[in-house]
């Protein structure tokens, strides 16, 4: 693939071994996908966590002097400080690891947003902008809803892009790959963010790879609903670009969405598909010991809804109640009084924390909880953290009365 002089110098190590390592990955990706050249990106989001492979890779790049040319936003880890304040002392014995990783992130030039929903808060791209977004809920959103151009970056390839300020030109960065090839006719009403969760998983699980075009959907979805939709499209499958006819900016009508081509595949999604997904991904039975809401991170609107449902009430003493959001939204919830309402009911709002992360495993593995997130239920089943899938108001009802779901 063609590299300009500066890109060649990055690869040759003129900017240090860390930048060279990042460029090496970018070039290998470019060659794998037959990219002709690199393009400059103007935004990045890295979904790095404290997993061993992330610690290893970030330490290697930082030690090699790598600094991000484009300062990326980053995913949540967990707020150990908050947990310790409420009496949960270093549950995974990782205080040192988290401290070191934070230093590495700062050295690399990563902005510590600790949010999995940058696309609606801290890192919102404009139409047509070349970006490198990792995090499954974010990539489909920036492509489909914002009309920016990102491939389905991994945590590491997004970091490499932030360091080099480049992305190889292939895939969803090119017009011809952004048009749809699978038609999905939705034949059931989609009413709230929970329906978008179920629909996203069901559709991507059923369709396989490709760019889906949805018809029969509401014309005025909220940003939160589309965040949930994208997150599940990338969990049940690997969708990074989609269209909703009449809603998303590259799908003014069916013909435009398909770029004038005929759909290769046609599927329908019915009420049964959504019910099947809810059943398939609900695990465990018995007494509910915890409620976890906010995967992807709740927005201020979703936090307000929880506060409204809990106003003046008391959560059952045997149920732990967690709302996950970005540190920025938590600050806003504090200012708005929602934090106080939720705390007084006996619940927590924890900032900068993921649902599938080590701090919870010791607390909740082998137990049963409820969540409104298909993604949370899907991934945590691996560590025997079992979730029943329910709508937000149902999760709150169960938290108040205790007992079984």
């Amino acid at each position, binding site marked *: 693939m063609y590299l300009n002089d500066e890109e060649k110098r990055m690869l040759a190590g003129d900017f240090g071994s860390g930048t060279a390592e990042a460029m090496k990955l970018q070039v290998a990706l470019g060659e794998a996908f037959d990219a002709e050249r690199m393009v400059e990106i103007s935004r990045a989001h890295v979904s790095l966590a404290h997993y061993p492979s992330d610690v290893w890779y970030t330490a290697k790049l930082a030690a090699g002097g790598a600094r991000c040319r484009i300062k990326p936003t980053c995913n949540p880890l967990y707020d150990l400080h908050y947990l310790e304040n409420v009496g949960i002392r270093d549950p995974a014995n990782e205080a040192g690891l988290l401290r070191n990783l934070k230093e590495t992130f700062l050295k690399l030039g990563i902005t510590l947003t600790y949010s999995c929903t940058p696309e609606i808060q801290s890192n919102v791209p404009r139409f047509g902008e070349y970006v490198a977004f990792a995090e499954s809920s974010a990539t489909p959103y920036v492509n489909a809803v914002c009309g920016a151009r990102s*491939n389905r970056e991994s945590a590491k390839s997004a970091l490499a892009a932030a360091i080099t300020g480049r992305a190889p030109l292939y895939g969803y960065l090119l017009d011809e790959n952004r048009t749809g090839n699978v038609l999905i006719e939705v034949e059931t009403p989609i009413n709230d963010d929970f329906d978008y969760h179920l629909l996203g998983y069901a559709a991507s699980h059923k369709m396989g790879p490709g760019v889906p075009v949805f018809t029969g959907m509401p014309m005025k979805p909220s940003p939160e609903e589309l965040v949930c939709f994208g997150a599940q499209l990338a969990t049940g499958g690997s969708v990074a670009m989609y269209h909703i006819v009449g809603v998303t900016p590259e799908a003014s009508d069916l013909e435009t969405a398909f770029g004038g081509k005929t759909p290769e595949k046609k599927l329908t999604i019915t009420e049964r598909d959504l019910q099947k997904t809810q059943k398939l991904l609900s695990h465990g039975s018995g007494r509910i010991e915890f409620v976890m809401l906010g995967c992807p991170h709740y927005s201020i609107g979703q936090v307000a809804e929880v506060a409204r449902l809990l106003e003046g009430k008391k959560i059952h003493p045997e149920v732990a109640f967690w709302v996950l959001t970005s540190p920025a939204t938590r600050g806003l919830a504090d200012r708005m009084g929602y934090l106080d309402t939720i705390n007084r009911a006996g619940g927590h709002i924890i900032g900068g924390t993921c649902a599938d992360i080590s701090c919870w495993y010791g607390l909740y593995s082998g137990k049963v909880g409820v969540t409104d997130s298909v993604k949370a239920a899907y991934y945590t089943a691996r560590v025997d953290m079992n979730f029943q899938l329910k709508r937000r108001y149902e999760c709150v009802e169960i938290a108040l009365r205790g007992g079984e779901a």
Partner: protein
Amino acid sequence: MGKENALTFNCHRISGGSAEGQVLISPEPVCFYMIDTDTGKINERSHALVGQSITDKVLVLPSGKGSSVVQDEGLFALKQKNTGPKGIIVKNPDTVLVAGTIVMDYPLFDRVDNEFYDHIENDDYVKVDAERELIMLVKKQAC
């Protein structure tokens, strides 16, 4: 394995070197995080291959799936414990899977001749020559 029994197909090398091993075909995409890294067994409860081990296999996949965070983590942990696949042949590569295999140095191949998919069955043996971008397939009854 007599060479006369081998069928040869073209492919495209994405990452890693040559690889060989018994074939395991997944009818659906795989998230490497949803594998028990001690045993190499798929532990995603609703997956078609739940309970089957991918260790030392040449995995034939339609595509990767799932998180941009943990797909890599699965590949990394399997590598560390020597319970990963010998190689991966994928129909629709995505950036998450490709970046993971490049960083973790797994052999990954795509763009295989269509006829390959007509012939291939579980427990067949394949040798992938990364230099020449060729796959040699030995049917199980010929072994």
